[in-house]
């Protein structure tokens, strides 16, 4: 029998707010344990939550960017369970009235696009974490407790691990574009639970699913889903049955293993949190957020095609992240040669970043500096070869391209006199080749260009060299 996997994802997006969702404590990662806490996030007696409006704003942004409808009334609910990292004994989340409903994202599958449904997006708070000591004791660090999260729940529309990864990358691109998530997957800012089941091909009834918890890299998501699909198929083929359970992915071994079984299934006793008033979202509020929404990758991609006449490949690469697109666009607008800007950003710039292992945010060459360089090429002041030297110089020591060219005497020579002199000299020394050329052997033209450039130390204007050579060689 052949099997068809069915995959749905629940993604936790940590929001990039300065303060927590229900109190004013900092959300900064990596502080001393329990430094970023107050009576509210410690759940001391008498403490009450007050909603951070920024979280709602961010959630609306996420909803609009994923084609969801925004609920006019939002209720926060309590999800009750006991765990030492959950200080109140309940998590404040949304239950039957989430802020965003029924959206979708389109992903590329081969040459086709496929639409993946988004069931809902809701706002919630994160829990703290347990720190297990060497002596067998455990500590509770509540710095993370109350950090705002969006949970994005997809429809079970994905059929392969690659589709799941494509969806995840698309969502990642959107939330980082929106500037609502820092996208730091290692710190858990973007993590996902994957629901995986398999059913016989042709069946319309989903199989029993297993949930793989908290996977925090694209690579691991693919590996975990692929492993899980294979495990379930093998299990069924061996006559076994998949049980509904929560599993963990072990990245070292590349396997998933059972975390807790069905017998421990929770009754969360959800009910509306009486400490928080319903959040009413007006149409005006939604309109305002919509107006302030940054341009999203798809729109940017299309605009790059039309506004800058870039090839699709370039537009795709350049819009892969908002910082890259912004860098390109600033450079292109300053130098007014979009294709050159695209080539430099995708080529020399990206290569240098990779070689040095740094991100674009840390790049020592600004878009304006790169634009200055491109303008020198376009103006005929330097050749492409020289430009690479100048780029390296800016990378290492900073400075303005024009100034560097001037200081180091790198400007190309367009002075016909100097170039003519060089040509004359070279023709005189290579009369044999001159004869060959005049005899119809065009190929030797390249030889003369090379010789002239060499004599001019690479600084001669290639166009001028070409013109003059043609004239002179013609006799």
């Amino acid at each position, binding site marked *: 029998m052949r099997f068809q996997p069915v995959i749905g994802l629940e993604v936790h997006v940590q929001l990039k707010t300065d303060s927590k969702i229900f109190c004013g404590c900092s959300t900064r990662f990596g502080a001393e344990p329990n430094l970023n806490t107050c009576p509210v996030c410690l759940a001391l007696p*008498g403490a009450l939550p007050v909603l951070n409006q920024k979280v709602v704003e961010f959630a609306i942004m996420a909803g609009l960017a994923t084609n969801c409808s925004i609920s006019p009334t939002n209720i926060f609910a309590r999800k009750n369970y006991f765990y030492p990292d959950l200080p109140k*004994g309940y998590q404040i989340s949304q239950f039957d009235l989430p802020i965003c409903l029924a959206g979708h994202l389109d992903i590329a599958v081969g040459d086709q696009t496929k639409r993946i449904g988004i069931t809902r997006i809701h706002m919630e708070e994160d829990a703290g974490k347990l720190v297990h000591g060497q002596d067998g004791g455990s500590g509770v660090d509540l710095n993370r407790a109350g950090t705002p999260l969006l949970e994005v729940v997809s429809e079970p529309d994905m059929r392969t691990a690659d589709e799941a990864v494509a969806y995840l990358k698309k969502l990642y691109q959107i939330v980082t574009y929106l500037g609502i998530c820092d996208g730091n997957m290692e710190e858990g800012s973007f993590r996902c639970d994957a629901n995986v089941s398999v059913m016989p091909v042709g069946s319309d009834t989903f199989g029993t699913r297993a949930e793989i918890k908290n996977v925090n890299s694209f690579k691991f998501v693919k590996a975990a889903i692929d492993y899980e699909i294979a495990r379930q198929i093998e299990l069924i083929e061996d006559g076994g049955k998949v049980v509904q359970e929560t599993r963990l992915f072990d990245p070292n071994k590349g396997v998933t293993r059972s975390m807790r079984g069905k017998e421990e299934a929770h009754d969360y*006793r959800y009910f509306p949190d009486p*400490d928080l008033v319903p959040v009413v979202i007006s149409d005006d509020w939604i309109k305002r957020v919509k107006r302030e929404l940054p341009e999203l990758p798809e729109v940017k991609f299309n605009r790059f095609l039309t506004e800058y006449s870039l090839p699709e490949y370039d537009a795709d690469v350049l819009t892969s992240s908002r910082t890259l697109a912004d860098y390109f666009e600033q450079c292109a607008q300053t130098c007014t040669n979009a294709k050159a800007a695209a080539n430099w950003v995708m080529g020399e710039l990206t290569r240098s970043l990779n070689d040095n292992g740094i991100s674009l945010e840390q790049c020592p060459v600004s878009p304006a500096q790169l634009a200055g360089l491109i303008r020198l090429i376009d103006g005929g002041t330097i050749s492409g070869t020289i430009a690479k030297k100048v780029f390296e110089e800016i990378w290492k020591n900073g400075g303005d391209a024009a100034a560097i060219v001037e200081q180091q005497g790198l400007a190309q020579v367009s002075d016909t006199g100097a170039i003519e002199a060089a040509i004359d000299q070279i023709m005189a020394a290579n009369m044999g080749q001159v004869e060959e050329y005049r005899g119809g052997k065009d190929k030797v033209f390249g030889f003369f260009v090379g010789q002239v450039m060499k004599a001019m130390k690479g600084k001669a204007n290639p166009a001028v060299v070409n013109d003059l050579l043609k004239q002179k060689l013609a006799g």
Partner: protein
Amino acid sequence: MELYEQTIHDLQAQLQARQVSSVEITNSFLNRIESTDQSINAFITVTKEQALLDAAAADQRIAAGDCAPLTGIPVALKDIFLTEGVRTTCASKMLDNFIAPYDATAWARIKSQGAVLLGKLNQDEFAMGSSCENSAFGPTRNPWNREHIPGGSSGGSAAAIAAQQAVATLGTDTGGSIRQPASHCGCVGLKPTYGRVSRYGVIAYASSLDQVGPITRDVTDAALLLEAIAGHDPKDSTSVDCPVPNYTAALKQGVKGLKIGLPKEYFIDGLDADVQQAMDQAIATYRRLGAEFVEVSLPHTNYAVATYYLIATAEASSNLARYEGVRFGHRAKDTAGLIDLMMQSRSEGFGAEVKRRIMLGTYALSSGYYDAYYIKAQKVRTLIQQDFIEAFKSVDLLLTPVAPTPAFRIGEKTADPLQMYLSDIFTIPVNLAGICGISVPAGASSTGLPIGLQLLGRPFGEETILRAAFDFEQATDWHTKKAAL
């Protein structure tokens, strides 16, 4: 008259005129507490040293000409209010060792005026109870008759006023916990509209019902205290952002021309004869003062107690989840692992009534029962709210008894929780509807126990019930009667 027998407004006048110092007043109360509290047990904690330091500071402040309405006035708080640096137990073994690290907003507002904290008052554990018998620190006794309960859950707050151990106290009212003990102890007890006073720093019992309010010797003091504690608090989302009226100024407007409703569901057969008589006399007094009476109906009253015990316990089961012995409060010793630690700590830390309500609430919220109990209760709650809205279309306020009987005997109802729950039958609908209510002394039983009168107002209609209560107080002398102790 001794200093401890006086009201806030009496003491305030003397403080301002420099006829007396806050230290003298504070000492008067501290001595009174010392000489009477062994027989009343109103206090869980007396903050003697700090009180005298604060009184001295208040005297300096007054000397410097900076005298707010409550500067130098000694108050005591139900032990449900967090008080920075002071043990805050909520009358539970669970918080026996808990020193509050911050102040509740209501207390912080009074404190900022220079009020002096005498100590923390007994109550039913986590405010669950109607008699002040459910305390890990033993029951409080009614100063009018120590064989009787003072009412609950703010029993310590009411008893301390009746025993003249504090000039004013703060309590909380979830289903009548201010008005009922005030009625049983012959004090004025005001439950403001839900959202009028911040709940921040008040240990939660049932968040959608809890409201902070004063228990005082007279109506003027209640207005004074409400003025001090009311108003929006950015730390409590449910506190309403609307201006705080001048309640003391509103008192003098009288009841002439006011239309008072008598809900027929509150004047039932079986109402205690002494209570009925007190109500009849109160109605006659109001008629004399120029108020008009009409009968109104609150048809869903019958469902209030059942509704309350579903919603309150559901919220309580969740609110009390944080007491699990992990981070603060009572932690069981020698436990085997995490689950055992939590289970043992909660088993040992909570008393029987608290456990009963946690279990009730857990059940009401559990899957499969949620719609039948919790959701149903919320729907009925809306109907009860609408009853009041409808009634207030034709009347300015409502007059009802506070409790079906005067204070019952200690131990009389402890074996029968359902019987105990019914003692709040006239106060509970008010919390479900979120409206305001006040209890004022209006009579005495044949055995000399106080009987209170309840006036109910529209949401944020505190001015109306206060002025009606004040007019009644001016026309009668029930509030001047003192428990012999």
